[in-house]
């Protein structure tokens, strides 16, 4: 009993002494990380649209545009332009089709974009494509059609959509649209030279099976609890997202910066998680990287100030 009181008194004395002569103070700090891109030349940003694929459960183009716009609105200094989402895959297919229909068009000044070389290849692919892709709503057509004016008119183009994009290989066929300087410059002119955000989004379902290590509780004869690692064979399913963000100068149509990443999430095979919630779960991981390209990011932490 005496020893216990002595210990209590000693700890109280120690506490009093420590608080009386504190020589350090823990403070929260926010370390700013400067953006990767210098966007001071732009006051406005246009999230134009994405070439998306992987699954039909989520319209990754529309969802990504909505999400990025709302994030940019609240977490960047740029003014977000509200415009219809460009159905880029269809535009690329239409352009390719047009240039394939009139091979000489490639030499005309209207379609004279040196980087347009990949488009005829798309044309052959698109023409053989059997199922028409999901057509964009009629309301989205006017702004989408305007930029294509750079290419020769194709009245029959909307009749067939692009083939379904299921893998990164399928996406490659559409990449040439991002280097079409004239196309992006025209869009830039239309929206008063903003910073244009575009790119590709591949949102694909995943299914894996294999051994995983997880901690399992065990109780012995005396009821004592222990946690032991256990290797289990599990079937899991989920989704992977592979976005590639392309930042284009609306004044020149040139690509300023490209940022790509890949994230995946896996659940127990019995768990039924909607594709849309997985999409948002994955985009939560991607967004900081995206915002870090355009605006200052703050890393929260603590440091110790000394006297």
């Amino acid at each position, binding site marked *: 009993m005496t020893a216990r009181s002595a210990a209590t008194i000693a700890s109280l004395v120690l506490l009093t002494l420590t608080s009386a002569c504190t*020589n*350090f*103070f823990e*403070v929260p*700090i*926010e*370390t*700013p*990380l*400067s953006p*990767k891109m210098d966007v001071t030349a732009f006051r406005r940003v246009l999230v134009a649209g994405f070439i998306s694929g992987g699954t039909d459960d989520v319209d990754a183009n529309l969802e990504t545009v909505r999400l990025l716009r709302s994030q940019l609105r609240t977490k960047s200094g740029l003014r977000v332009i509200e415009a219809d989402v460009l159905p880029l895959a269809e535009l690329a297919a239409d352009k390719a089709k047009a240039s394939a229909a009139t091979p000489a068009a490639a030499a005309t000044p209207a379609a004279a974009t040196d980087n347009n070389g990949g488009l005829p290849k798309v044309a052959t692919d698109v023409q053989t494509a059997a199922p028409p892709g999901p057509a964009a709503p009629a309301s989205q057509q006017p702004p989408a059609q305007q930029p294509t004016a750079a290419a020769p008119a194709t009245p029959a183009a909307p009749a067939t959509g692009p083939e379904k994009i299921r893998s990164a290989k399928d996406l490659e066929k559409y990449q040439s649209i991002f280097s079409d300087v004239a196309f992006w410059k025209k869009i830039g002119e239309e929206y008063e030279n903003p910073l244009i955000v575009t790119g590709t989004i591949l949102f694909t379902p995943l299914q894996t099976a294999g051994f995983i290590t997880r901690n399992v509780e065990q109780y012995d004869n005396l009821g004592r609890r222990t946690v032991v690692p256990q290797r289990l064979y599990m079937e899991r399913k989920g989704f992977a997202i592979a976005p590639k963000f392309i930042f284009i100068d609306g004044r020149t149509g040139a690509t300023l910066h490209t940022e790509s990443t890949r994230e995946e999430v896996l659940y127990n095979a019995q768990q039924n998680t909607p594709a849309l919630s997985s999409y948002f779960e994955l985009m939560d991981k991607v967004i900081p990287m995206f915002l*870090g390209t355009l605006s*200052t990011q703050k*890393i929260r*932490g603590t*440091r*110790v*100030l*000394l*006297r």
Partner: protein
Amino acid sequence: MKMRALLLARAAAFAALLGVAAQPVFADARSSAKSQVDFGIKVAQNGLWKEAVYRWEKAAEADPTYAAAWNNLGIGYEHEGRFEDARKAYEKAVALDPKNVLIRQNYDLFKEINDRAKRRNDR
């Protein structure tokens, strides 16, 4: 022999005198630096980091051997996004007080973020 002893005694007396005279000067520098550091801590705790940095700069200027001032300055610069200045300040603090675990911990955390920022820019 006597002369030599006399000279030695004189030198010792002069050194002692110099020490006594210099002590208040150093003590003044440290106490002035300490008051600046204390004020800096108070304002930093209230979120006024620019003022805090100014105070800690004054403290480090007044007493360049005061490790705490350099440590706090490193934190202040880090908060302001001045990574190069922060690195120099932390390095000075570590050099002045190499056994201080708290300074070392602050510096390590800073280095982690600084490396991440560098990797981002290099990509």
